[in-house]
């Protein structure tokens, strides 16, 4: 069996919190925002993995770490079985009290490394906010051509323009020439997101990391952008990590689904299977609030109580227990291990084993 295109193993990203002087003097141990707290997944070529979860559960942090905008605290990111990320500089990772028990220096990895530059040719990110992710003083031509310029590809002017044109037209901006000399503020939100997608696709990457690509857009144009991504995946065979807080778009689009809660994946499996047969109470709560077109078919909605706990002081045991409608006393003590619902579908909840949910 060949290695998956992308493999993430036990990824941790802790953001240190600035300490006050008095805390420093009292030698109080540093606090961390545990934005990503032990996440593993794989992605095959041409596959779409949806990562779903509430605001603040660490979705964007995963995306930024994958593309190398953040340095992981611990864990491995393998792209075609080569490690990426700046983890060689992370000898200091040993200073971080990881819950994985990773205190002390980690043994050196013997895997070949992929340079950041190469990774960034093969993986591209689509940011959430199309109003912010385009340089307001650059023209669309400059924006879409930028990856080519940065990587020293398509040096000839003719070739560059031809590739920009193809990318824009594939992203649904036709005729492309009409857009070349326009500025982002002359375009609508949907058009801007198409420009972002064109610029991500101009290098013909293998992996797109789309961080809530439609959440900032008008509802009426969301479907168009999702269709565009689906077409690109079919035509170009590009794999997509599709980050969203909106489960309703998932069924439409994703092959596999990973549900995140407070920095962890709590349930993962084929999208249809998870949606049809959710096991984790958190997944169930998320699914129960998806709007249903036919009001007569309305399911019973599970409204979660309470606020999301902050990712600095995580609850003990199962991190979902303060809000879980079926929590037992045990849940506050034991961190639930993975439970295989089917060979491809897993959930981390103690009560599955007891057969309750």
């Amino acid at each position, binding site marked *: 069996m060949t290695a998956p295109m992308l493999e993430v193993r036990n990824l941790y990203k802790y953001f240190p919190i600035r300490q006050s002087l008095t805390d420093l003097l009292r030698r109080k141990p540093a606090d961390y925002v545990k934005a990503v707290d032990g996440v593993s997944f794989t992605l095959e070529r041409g596959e779409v993995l949806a990562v779903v979860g509430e605001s603040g559960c660490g979705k964007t942090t995963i995306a930024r770490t994958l593309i190398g905008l953040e340095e992981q605290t611990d864990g491995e990111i393998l792209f075609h079985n080569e490690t990426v990320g700046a983890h060689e500089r992370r000898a200091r990772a040993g200073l971080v009290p990881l819950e994985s028990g990773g205190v002390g220096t980690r043994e050196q990895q013997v895997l070949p490394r992929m340079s950041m530059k190469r990774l960034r040719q093969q993986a591209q990110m689509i940011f959430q906010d199309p109003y912010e992710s*385009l340089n307001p003083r650059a023209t669309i031509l400059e924006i879409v051509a930028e990856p080519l310029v*940065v990587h020293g590809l398509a040096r000839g002017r003719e070739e560059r323009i031809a590739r920009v044109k193809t990318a824009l037209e594939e992203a649904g901006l036709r005729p492309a020439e009409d857009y070349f000399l326009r500025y982002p503020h002359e375009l609508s939100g949907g058009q801007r997101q198409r420009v972002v997608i064109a610029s991500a696709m101009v290098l013909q990457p293998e992996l797109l990391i789309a961080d809530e690509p439609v959440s900032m857009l008008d509802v009426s144009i969301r479907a168009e952008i999702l269709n565009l991504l689906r077409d690109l995946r079919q035509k170009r065979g590009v794999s997509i990590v599709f980050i969203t807080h909106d489960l309703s778009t998932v069924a439409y689009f994703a092959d596999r689904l990973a549900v995140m809660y407070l920095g962890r994946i709590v349930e993962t499996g084929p999208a249809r299977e998870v949606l049809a047969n959710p096991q984790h109470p958190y997944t169930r709560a998320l699914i129960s609030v998806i709007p249903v077109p036919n009001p007569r078919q309305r399911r019973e909605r599970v409204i979660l109580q309470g606020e999301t706990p902050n990712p600095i002081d995580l609850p003990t045991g199962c991190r979902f227990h303060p809000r879980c409608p079926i929590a037992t006393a045990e849940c506050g003590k034991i961190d639930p291990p993975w439970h295989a619902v089917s060979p491809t579908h897993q959930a981390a909840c103690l009560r599955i084993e007891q057969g309750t949910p």
Partner: protein
Amino acid sequence: MNENWTLFKRNLAEFWKTFRKNRLGLLGAFLVITSILVATFAPWLSPYSPSDIIRDEGGHGLTFASPAVHAPLGTDDAGHDVWSQLVHGARISLMVGFMAGFIAMFVGSLFGILAGYFGGAVDNLLMRITDILLVIPDLPLMLILVATIRQLDLKISPLTVLIAVIGLLYWTSTARLIRSQVLTIKERQFVARARAIGAGHGHIIRKHILPQIMPLIVANTVLILSTAILVESGLAFLGLGDPTKPSWGTMLNFAFDRSAVTNGAWWFYLPPGLAIVWVTLGCVLLGNVLEEMLNPRLTAHHLEGDQNMVTVPGKGVE
């Protein structure tokens, strides 16, 4: 090249469309442009050379002669034509002001960009240098510097010394302004996107940071010019100018040295004073209007023209 030219013309046209509606801006531009024109065409605008002595029929120098046809602004204590001196003085004042202003702008922008973009130790070092310059009183420092450099007898022209001292002291406010702008710009998503594409620091600074702060730099330069011209006048008035190449400040210095006031020769000291006001007022008006028009913080370019911006993402599922 062709499309760049098209874009440039379009941007200029857009700029002009808003600028022409602004009366203060137009006034400022008028004041600045007229003084530049006068400085440029000084030899054609002055009936005499500044060093010509105007004499009466008997061959005596006309000292402190009041304005008349042959000397439109009268003469000074030595019989030189004040108008000719004023027009030639514009060259010196503007040259020193502009060169010092550009040095200040260049140093300030460089420090501001490097400090803001790289942060950390670079920021600390550059900003401490800025702080030190900021707390030392300018005038005494400049007097000491200019006097010391002269003492060294380095065969540098006094004007060059003035330009260097003013240019190297007046960049601190620019540096702070640019730094704070860069600090916010570098956190914006299009910069993160450029990094994610694989762009290096040089590329990001040139293509993403600089275009955002360029308008601010332009506006700030115009404001710095007014300061530089004013400071030059002050130093020259205190006798630190070049007596062989009199600027407006030098003229004032002469006027007071040679008791123009007690002689009632207002035509000797009033014109250079008004000329200084003319230019600096022009620069301040123009600079403020440009800043107002171009400051990214005040216009928020990226928010314009689309109401969809208000669709805030859902807070997730609660």
